[in-house]
């Protein structure tokens, strides 16, 4: 079970297209499209949104994302009619619809709480950094080398550099894979070009935004009790081309 998502849009096709995109990155998350009116007209439907919440919330809660102001009003109205129990586990996220939905979906896929999923959606505005990079992450970078290279300084920080084996490099799907993988470890993991590993590996948007393409090198920096395992797991996926050619 995980937190579900409801995509409230004025357009049925917009919501459905986004649902498709989010579901690809978070196959186990209930992502429900609530776009347009019952008759397919443009607008937001109170009844459709209410039904979508019922479908998305399997007990762990649901996060609603919306496209325009009046969709927010409909979402708020729906929240008002939920019973108190359910309302406590449902959030309306003030987030950019597309980026927010993808951030929320991948976070939900990792088994996060409803508040964490809502926060992931909101963080997609990019208003705040997703946690500071470790001090000197850039300055202490190892020299890029062919293939992977290990270095294990005394402070417990683990660094690896790996060449991306797939031709497309880090696009949405590999980014989601990385996020999902590192969520399973007790470690802080940062990724980026060699010497500039400053992107939080738990944020799909930060990882995608790196724009690292196939054949380029990526540095993976880990810190924490399971830093070694987490970094190795990411390196293995990258070396394997994320299961792509």
């Amino acid at each position: 079970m995980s937190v579900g998502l409801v995509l409230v849009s004025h357009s049925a096709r917009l919501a459905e297209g986004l649902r498709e995109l989010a579901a690809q990155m978070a196959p186990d998350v209930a992502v429900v499209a609530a776009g347009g009116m019952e008759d397919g007209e443009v607008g937001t439907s109170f009844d459709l949104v209410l039904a979508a919440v019922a479908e998305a919330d399997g007990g762990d809660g649901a996060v609603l994302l919306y496209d325009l102001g009046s969709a927010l009003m409909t979402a708020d109205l729906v929240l008002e009619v939920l019973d108190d129990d359910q309302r406590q586990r449902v959030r309306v996220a003030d987030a950019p619809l597309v980026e927010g939905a993808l951030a929320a979906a991948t976070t939900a896929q990792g088994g996060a709480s409803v508040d964490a999923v809502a926060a992931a959606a909101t963080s997609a505005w990019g208003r705040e950094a997703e946690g500071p990079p470790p001090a000197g992450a850039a300055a202490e970078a190892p020299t890029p080398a062919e293939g992977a290279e290990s270095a294990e300084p005394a402070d417990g920080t683990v660094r690896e550099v790996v060449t991306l084996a797939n031709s497309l490099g880090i696009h949405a799907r590999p980014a989601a894979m990385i996020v999902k993988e590192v969520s399973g470890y007790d470690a802080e993991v940062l990724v980026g070009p060699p010497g500039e590993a400053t992107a939080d590996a738990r944020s799909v948007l930060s990882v995608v935004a790196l724009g690292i393409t196939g054949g380029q090198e990526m540095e993976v920096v880990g810190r924490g009790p399971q830093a070694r395992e987490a970094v190795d797991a990411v390196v293995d996926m990258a070396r394997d081309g994320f299961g792509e050619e």
Partner: protein
Amino acid sequence: MPVSTQDVLDLVRAYAGVVAENRDYLIQLDAAIGDADHGENMDRGMKAALVKLDGETSATPSDVLKSVATSLITKVGGAAGPLYGTAFLRAATAVQGKDTLEPTDVVAAITAARDGIVARGKAEPQDKTMVDAWTPAVDAAGAAASDGGGVRAVLEAAADAAEQGMRDTIPWVARKGRASYLGERSAGHQDPGATSTALLLRAAADLAGREA
């Protein structure tokens, strides 16, 4: 004369008629600065409200207002649905349990409606929204009731003030709703939501006048 349940039913019917007559006008206003759906949405919502009311028995003014709220919330896809739906819902709550409405009840209903719209849409005065018709109407209605005015005087004061508020929106730059995306280009156009509000209160005042 206090307002009866039948009076409120008459108002809903009258307003549905006014909205149907002004459907194209509201669309025109909305096309200039919004998404051109206000006239159609209001027409659809009020027609649905009539159908729903025809199929039920309303014991009190509050019942009628609540029924209209449900229709608007479920049948209107644009911002007008949640906004007017909330307005009617709050008005219904404000006069719950009353068989007839005195002037002070009418003021309470209009005030609750305005407060609901503000809570739902988060618009401030002079954002160029329906709030700019509602708030002067609330103030004028309250003043008229304080002066000892009857239902007719209260509603006429509200309608006059709403119409003035509606006209006042013309030069303003929209800061809320779809029109706000237009920035400066929204100036010079009358707000559609303020217009449909003025029409509602005028319809109520006309009914009260007819019955006086």
